[in-house]
C-alpha cells in the first residue's frame, strides 16, 4: 500500500500517526536534539510507518470505554508533562512512543497491540538507546582511549596514555562520553534492529552477525577519528581552518557517522540478499 492510496487517506489511524510523526520531528528539531538522534528518529518514524503501509492492520471498531479512557489518560499525562519541555530534556525521547501508544489504545484492543508488537518496539528504540548511553560509555571510554593510544604508537606517533587522556607533543585529548563512540555505536545497532524488524534476516545468527559488524565498523571508525583528533589537537582554537575543531564539531562527527552507517547498511544488504539466493538454490 502506498501513501497515496485511498485506504490510507481514509484511515484515521494512519493520518493520526503521520500527524504524530511530523509533530515529533518538529519537536526534536525545535529543541535542538543532536543530528544523530534526529536521523535515528527519522529512521524510527519510517520503520513504524512502513508497518502500516506494508500491512493493513485490522482495527477493531467496537472498543470499550475503558480502553478509550486509558488512551486519553495517557495522552493528557504526556501533554501535561510536555508543557515543560526544554532543550536538554530527556522526556523528548519518550514523547513519540507515549503518543504512539495512546493512539494505538484508541484504535486497537490491547491484545492486538501485544500481537503486533514490532512497530511499538521500533518506537522505543530512541529512549532505550538513550538509557544505554551512560552504561555503554563507561565501558567504551577507556577502551577507545586504549586503542587510540595503541594506533598512535603503532604508526610511530609516540604518545602517552593517562586514564582516559592521551598526550601527544605536549598536547592532549580527554576521551569523554561523547567522544567514546557509544552514541554512534548505538545509532548503528539501532539501525540494524529497525532494518531487521522491517526486513527480517534469515535467522538470529545472521542478525547477531550484522550487529557485530556494525559495532566493529563504528568502533574502528571512531578510533580513526580520535587518532586524527590527537594528531591535530595543536590546531585547537587556532585562527583559520582548524582540523581539530572541524573533526570535533557535529559536521565532522557526522562524516564518520555516515561512513559507519553506509558500511553497516551495506553489510546488512549483503546478508539480506544471501537469503534470496539460498532460497532459489533450495528450490
Amino acid at each position, binding site marked *: 500500500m502506498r501513501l497515496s492510496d485511498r485506504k490510507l487517506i481514509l484511515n484515521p489511524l494512519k493520518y493520526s500517526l503521520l500527524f504524530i510523526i511530523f509533530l515529533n520531528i518538529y519537536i526534536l528539531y525545535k529543541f535542538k536534539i543532536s543530528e544523530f538522534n534526529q536521523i535515528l528518529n527519522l529512521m524510527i518514524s519510517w520503520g513504524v510507518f512502513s508497518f502500516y503501509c506494508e500491512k493493513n492492520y485490522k482495527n477493531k471498531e467496537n472498543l470499550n470505554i475503558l480502553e478509550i479512557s486509558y488512551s486519553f489518560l495517557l*495522552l493528557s499525562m504526556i501533554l501535561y508533562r*510536555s508543557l515543560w519541555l*526544554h532543550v536538554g530534556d530527556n522526556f523528548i525521547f519518550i514523547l513519540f512512543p507515549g503518543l504512539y501508544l495512546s*493512539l494505538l489504545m484508541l484504535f486497537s484492543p490491547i491484545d492486538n497491540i501485544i500481537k503486533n508488537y514490532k512497530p511499538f518496539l521500533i518506537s522505543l528504540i530512541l529512549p532505550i538507546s538513550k538509557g544505554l548511553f551512560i552504561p555503554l*560509555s563507561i565501558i567504551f571510554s577507556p577502551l577507545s582511549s586504549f586503542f587510540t593510544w595503541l594506533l598512535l604508537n603503532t604508526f610511530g606517533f609516540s604518545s602517552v596514555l593517562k586514564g582516559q587522556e592521551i598526550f601527544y607533543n605536549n598536547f592532549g585529548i*580527554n576521551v569523554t*562520553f561523547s567522544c567514546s563512540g557509544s552514541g554512534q555505536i548505538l545509532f548503528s545497532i539501532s539501525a540494524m534492529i529497525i532494518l531487521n524488524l522491517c526486513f527480517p534476516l534469515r535467522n538470529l545468527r545472521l542478525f547477531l552477525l550484522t550487529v557485530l559488524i556494525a559495532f566493529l565498523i563504528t568502533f574502528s571508525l571512531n578510533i580513526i577519528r580520535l587518532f586524527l583528533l590527537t594528531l591535530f589537537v595543536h590546531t585547537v582554537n587556532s585562527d583559520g581552518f582548524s582540523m581539530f575543531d572541524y573533526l570535533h564539531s557535529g559536521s565532522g562527527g557526522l562524516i564518520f557517522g555516515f561512513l559507519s552507517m553506509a558500511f553497516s547498511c551495506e553489510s546488512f544488504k549483503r546478508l539480506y540478499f544471501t537469503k534470496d539466493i539460498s532460497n532459489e538454490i533450495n528450490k
Partner: protein
Amino acid sequence: MRLISKFKYLYLFILTIYAVFFVFFRPIPKLKSLLIKGSNTELSKQNAKNNMYDVISPTNKISVGKSFLLKDNKYWYQIIQLSFWREDYLNLQFLNKQLNINGINIQTIKSNNYALGTFHGEEIAFSCMKNSDEFQYSSSLRKVPESLDINHWKKVYIYNLKLVFYSFKPRNYECYVVITPNTNFFENSKFEINKKIFNNFIYE
C-alpha cells in the same frame, strides 16, 4: 458505536489544539517584580532602554527580566534579571556569545564562581548573584569526571531518570547577572556588594 468512533477524531483535535497552545502559551520561568529605588547620591541610573546590552532568552528554561545600569565614582555595573527553572540550569555561557565576551577565565571563591573576560577591549567580571553571599557563572563547574567513576555516573543516571518521571516540575531560581569592569567586585565583602547592588532595588 458511532459515538466511540468520534473519539478518534477528538484525539487528533486535542493534539492540534495542544500544538497551537504549546507554540503560543508555553510556560517560562517566573520573574519577581523588581524596581529601582529613588535617587541615590552615590549612584546614577539609567533605565533598560539606555542599556548597552541586549540579551535574549536562548531557551524557554531561562527568562530574561529587567536590566539596569548602575554607576559609582569609578565603575559601572550592568544588572540583568534572570530566572531559571532550576538552579542546575544556571549557566551564563549563552551571554558570552550574545554579548561577544571573549577570553573567558573562570574564578572560584569558596562554593561560588565568576567569570573574567574581555568585552570591547575592556576587562570585565561577571556572575549571576542570588544574593551578596551566593553567585555563580555556572552551577555545573566541575572537573571532567573519570569514566570509571561508577558512583558519579550512577548519581547522574538516577538524577536524569528523576527529572523525566518525577521531579520535572520547575522550581524557579532567580538571580541577577552583574557585569562590571571592577574585576575584584566579587571578592568584596557582603556589606560592600549589598551597598553597591542589592540595596538599590525594591523587591516585590
